[in-house]
Structure formats: structure tokens, C-alpha cells
């Protein structure tokens, strides 16, 4: 058992994967010296410049090269410096990585991992704060993983690297150093697509992922003091969604609050709400409520604008309290 931050857990997963399988390589901007968040620090020294290297400032180019390397028998882990800068590579990811296996009737799966820090609360302004999971979760052929804890970050990154298909692996910047927890030395393998219950309760289900899981747990704590028992589900993977776990949470409580940092419209919450409204309608005792960022391009840089954007425990608790009283 070791205590780690999320950033350390990810570094440790990279190191172990590279030790176990020499097809695993790491590339991206500034990764040789460790990247902006120091996540890849030490890898160059340990594995050498053939397996850890800096790319030109051209996301479409190096994501495309990652796809090619994956087709050519390697297991590339591409780092995007901030998820906001994945947008130039969207064509490679949607037109090529996501479709290659299906369109070749299974001949050419693409075992590629694209890691990217996302989310706000770090004075990132518009282009260093976005949550872009919904864009990729909508794309058949991509898997999208968003861990909330160090243990999940490590186990799920190992699973993503072992996976035969393209995985977008999103790491919340605030969790990098802010979330520190124990990671077992013999970490059990994780399965992509599996949600987990972080807290049990019968009154309201709070469904969340990433940094917002921690706000949801804090809200549940507050509500417990008022006698409202919340069940908190951590999705962990937003594509594919764990439909059964979501429906179970809805059926077991009849009342659901879905929480994400990404803005409301078209976010993961819409899909989760739709699954419930179709699959667990008979069990619902109240409207399906979403707590999410407002529909603006991103949070502002000034801390007042950032705070005005971010959902937090207080907002979640207020929504759940109102729903519990419905």
C-alpha cells in the first residue's frame, strides 16, 4: 500500500506498463522533461529516447502518428498537453482511430491511448479548463475513461494501455495533486466500462465522475447530517456507460441527480438521464435533475468567474435536498 496523488498514480502506471511491455511508448509535447504536470518525469531516463520523446507542436500529426504506430504493432500513449488542444486532432480520432476497426470488419483495431488533462479550478481560462468528454463519448468506436481516485487512475490507465481499442483517458488537473489516497501494491485490474458505488443510500442517487465525484461525496456527507441518505455512483468510464449500474442506482432510490463539471447542454448528463427516463421510468419518484456548468464556452480566468462556473458540494446538496423533498 502506497499513498499517491493522481499524478503519481498515472506516472506509476506508465512506468509499470513500459516495464512490462516494450511496445509501450510515450510521446507528446514536452514529455521528455516530464510535461507541464511532471507526470512523465523520469520516463526518459528509464526507457530512453526511442520510447519517450517529444513531438512537434502539431496534435493532428502526432495523434495520427500514434494511430499509425498502433497499427504498426506498438502501444502508443500520446499525451495532449491540455485537453483543449486535442481539438486539432479530432479528425484523426473520429475519422480514423474510432472507425478503423469497424470499417475493416475487425482487421485493424487501434490500440492507442490518448491522455489529456481536463477541467478547471486552476486559473486556466478558456483554453486550459474545458471538459470535452461529451464530444468523444458520442463517437462509436472510442472509449472514454475519467478516473477520480489514484487507485482508479492507475488501474484504469493500465487497462487502457492493454485495451485493443482507442481510449481517451481524461485526467482532472485539480485531482493531480489535490487528491491523494492509498494505492494497493497488488492493485486488482480494472475493467473499462464499469461504474462503482462510492456510497450507499436510499433517498437520492448522485451520479458523477472525475473531480465532481469528490464534490458529490462531500455533498452526500452534508446531506447525511440532515437525514438524507445519498447513494453516490462513480461512472469512471463515460463511454461505454455502465447502463446497468446507472439503472440500478435509479431503481434503488427513485430520485437521481447527475453531476458534471462540463456545461449542461449535450453533456454526459443528458445521456444518463435519457437512459434512466427510458429504462427505469416506472421506478422514478421525481424529476431527473442535472447539476452542471452553465452553457458558456468555459470558465473565465478570473477566480470569481471560475467559481461562478464550477459546480460544488453546496450546489449539489441544494439540488439533492430539493429533490428529496419532491
Amino acid at each position, binding site marked *: 500500500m502506497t499513498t499517491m496523488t493522481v499524478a503519481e498514480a498515472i506516472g506509476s502506471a506508465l512506468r509499470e506498463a513500459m516495464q512490462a511491455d516494450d511496445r509501450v511508448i510515450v510521446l507528446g509535447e514536452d514529455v521528455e522533461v516530464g510535461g507541464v504536470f511532471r507526470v512523465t518525469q523520469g520516463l526518459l531516463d528509464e526507457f530512453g529516447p526511442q520510447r519517450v520523446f517529444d513531438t512537434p507542436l502539431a496534435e493532428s500529426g502526432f495523434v495520427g502518428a500514434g494511430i499509425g504506430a498502433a497499427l504498426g504493432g506498438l502501444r502508443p500513449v500520446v499525451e495532449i498537453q491540455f485537453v483543449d488542444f486535442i481539438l486539432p486532432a479530432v479528425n484523426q480520432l473520429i475519422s480514423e482511430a474510432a472507425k478503423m476497426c469497424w470499417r475493416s470488419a475487425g482487421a485493424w483495431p487501434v490500440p492507442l491511448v490518448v491522455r489529456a488533462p481536463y477541467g478547471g479550478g486552476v486559473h486556466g481560462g478558456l483554453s486550459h479548463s474545458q471538459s470535452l468528454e461529451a464530444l468523444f463519448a458520442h463517437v462509436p468506436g472510442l472509449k472514454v475513461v475519467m478516473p477520480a481516485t489514484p487507485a482508479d487512475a492507475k488501474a484504469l490507465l493500465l487497462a487502457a494501455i492493454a485495451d*485493443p481499442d482507442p481510449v481517451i483517458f481524461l485526467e482532472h488537473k485539480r485531482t493531480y495533486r489535490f487528491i491523494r489516497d492509498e494505492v494497493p501494491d497488488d492493485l486488482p485490474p480494472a475493467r473499462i466500462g464499469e461504474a462503482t458505488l462510492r456510497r450507499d443510500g436510499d433517498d437520492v442517487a448522485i451520479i458523477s465522475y472525475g473531480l465532481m465525484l469528490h464534490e458529490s461525496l462531500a455533498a452526500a456527507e452534508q446531506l447525511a447530517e440532515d437525514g438524507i441518505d445519498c447513494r453516490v455512483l462513480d461512472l469512471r468510464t463515460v463511454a461505454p456507460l455502465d447502463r446497468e449500474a446507472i439503472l440500478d442506482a435509479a431503481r434503488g432510490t427513485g430520485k437521481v441527480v447527475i453531476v458534471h463539471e462540463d456545461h449542461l447542454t449535450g453533456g454526459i448528463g443528458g445521456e444518463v438521464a435519457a437512459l434512466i427516463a427510458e429504462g427505469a421510468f416506472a421506478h422514478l419518484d421525481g424529476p431527473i435533475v442535472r447539476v452542471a456548468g452553465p452553457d458558456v464556452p468555459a470558465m473565465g480566468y478570473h477566480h470569481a468567474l471560475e467559481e461562478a462556473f464550477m459546480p460544488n458540494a453546496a450546489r449539489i446538496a441544494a439540488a439533492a435536498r430539493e429533490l428529496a423533498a419532491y
Partner: protein
Amino acid sequence: MELWHLMLLARKVGERWFTLNRQGRAPFVISGQGHEATQVGTAAALTPGKDWVMPYYRDIGVVLTMGMTVDDLMLDVFAKATNPNSAGRQMPAHWSSKELRIPSQSSVVGTQVPIAAGLAWAAKLRGEDSVAAVYIGEGGTSQGDFHEGLNFAAVQRLPLIVVVENNGYAITEAQEKEMVIRDVADRAAGYGVNGVVVDGNDLLLVYRTMQQAVQEARMGGGPTLIEAKTYRTTPHSSDDDDRRYRTREELELWIQRDPIDRFRRNLLDDGILSDEHADQLSTEADEEVRAAEARAAAAPDPDPATLLDHLFGGAP
């Protein structure tokens, strides 16, 4: 000789595809008539199953030379379940073959260049002396991915060969609407890459140029860009009408420069081929195409129940 035969086959397949489209038996076709010397000449310098190839939609000549069969091509135009490229999921001419190291191609112009760089890089890292060859039209070199992919390959000194089939048009747009320069090969210098212009209708010249580029790439010399000047003697695809944007005189001029006739004359001059033999080969090629067509027409169509299959790869 063999190369001439491959050019001939490629031509016949392309022509037949267009006929099938006109007959209402293939909703869409796109092919490479006029490009055969460029396609066969470059592909002949590669080693099938060892080198990586990313051919674009015109490259019937490339895939035939690499080892696809006429049967494969006829299965493809009918979108049959047994066609090797996509089992009927993609339009015809979107190549794929695991054995031939041809990763599945999309319609999207440009993405191929970085992917090919990645293939070259995997080969290099794994210590194989394979090269990767990627094919693209001159119009396609306007895409950002061309720039990013070639630069990536240059920085890493990867064994990549970019073959630009310059036929002077991107659908209806003449080259002047795509770029100011006359030679796409001039772009190579901006990456520190060697750029070569060849007459794309001169089979042997194309072959020798490619061979040298492949050799250099295998020896660690890095990427080469080869621009082959050629012409498509058909409309862009079965959906296009090329009278909207180019003159019949221009077309006629290029038909005079037909790469297959030209090489046939060479072979005749050198006494390697006789007129009779050539005609016979041509008739045989026709027959081969028609026989493959008959077999392909009888092959099974995709089963709609399979639509959801293969979204993801097998177990990890």
C-alpha cells in the same frame, strides 16, 4: 513485361468498374485510369507484406501490384461480404489488407500522411527495415495533415515515402486553385526532405525513382517526396462530369501520352513484346476481369445482422 501486364489489368478493372456503374450495377466507382505507370511503378519497388502501404482511392494499380487479386477488386465494387477491404462497409476503393500491410483507408483526404509516418516509426522502432509508402493527390497536399505528417517523419528521420499523384485537378479545381507553385515537390524543402519530380507516365523512370527512395529510406536516410505528373483520363468519379471544368483537347493530349501505350511501344521497340502478344494479353485481361466479375456477382452480400459487429477489437 509483368509491370505492363499489371498496368493493363488495372486499366481494365477501372474501365469495367465505370461500365458497371453505368449499367446500374455499382452505385459508385472511382478509379485510376491514366495513373497506371505511377501506381504500378512505385508499388513494384516495394516488398509486399513487409513494407507498409497507404494507397488512396485511385490506386487500383498499387493494390494489384502489391498482391490484391482481380477477384478482390470485383468483390469490392459490388460491396460483397467477402471483399477484403471492408466487407461492404466502405465505398469501393477504400483499401485494406492485413496480410499486405495495407491499413484500412478512409475517404478523408490528408489523414493518411501522419498515419503512414506512424507506421514507418513503428517499423523503425521494432528494428524492421520496412518502409511506409503513402499515396495522395496534389490537391490533398493542401491539408494540414500533409504538413504535420511529413514534418514528423522528417524530424524522426523515418523511412517514409510520400507519393504525390499530380493529375492537375482536385475534382473540378485546377492546380492553380490549390497552390501557386507548379511542383508540389518544392514543398519538401520546407521539411528538410528530398523532393523529386518525375514524369508519372514513364513507368521505368517512376520505378527507378521509387527504388532509390526506398533504398535510402531503408538505410536510414529519412523520407522522400516523389511527385509524379500524370492525368486522370476519366471524370473524378462516377458522380462527376469533367466537361464542366476541362476541355476535350486537354484530355485528348493526355490520352496521347497514355502510359500503357507508351510502355507497350517501348516493349515493342525493344523486341520484348510483339503486337500479337500484347493484343492477346489484353484480351486475356478482359477475360480475367469478366470471369472475376461473374464470380464476384455470385458472392454473398453483407448480412444486415452483422451491422453491429467489430465496433471494437477482440479481447485485450
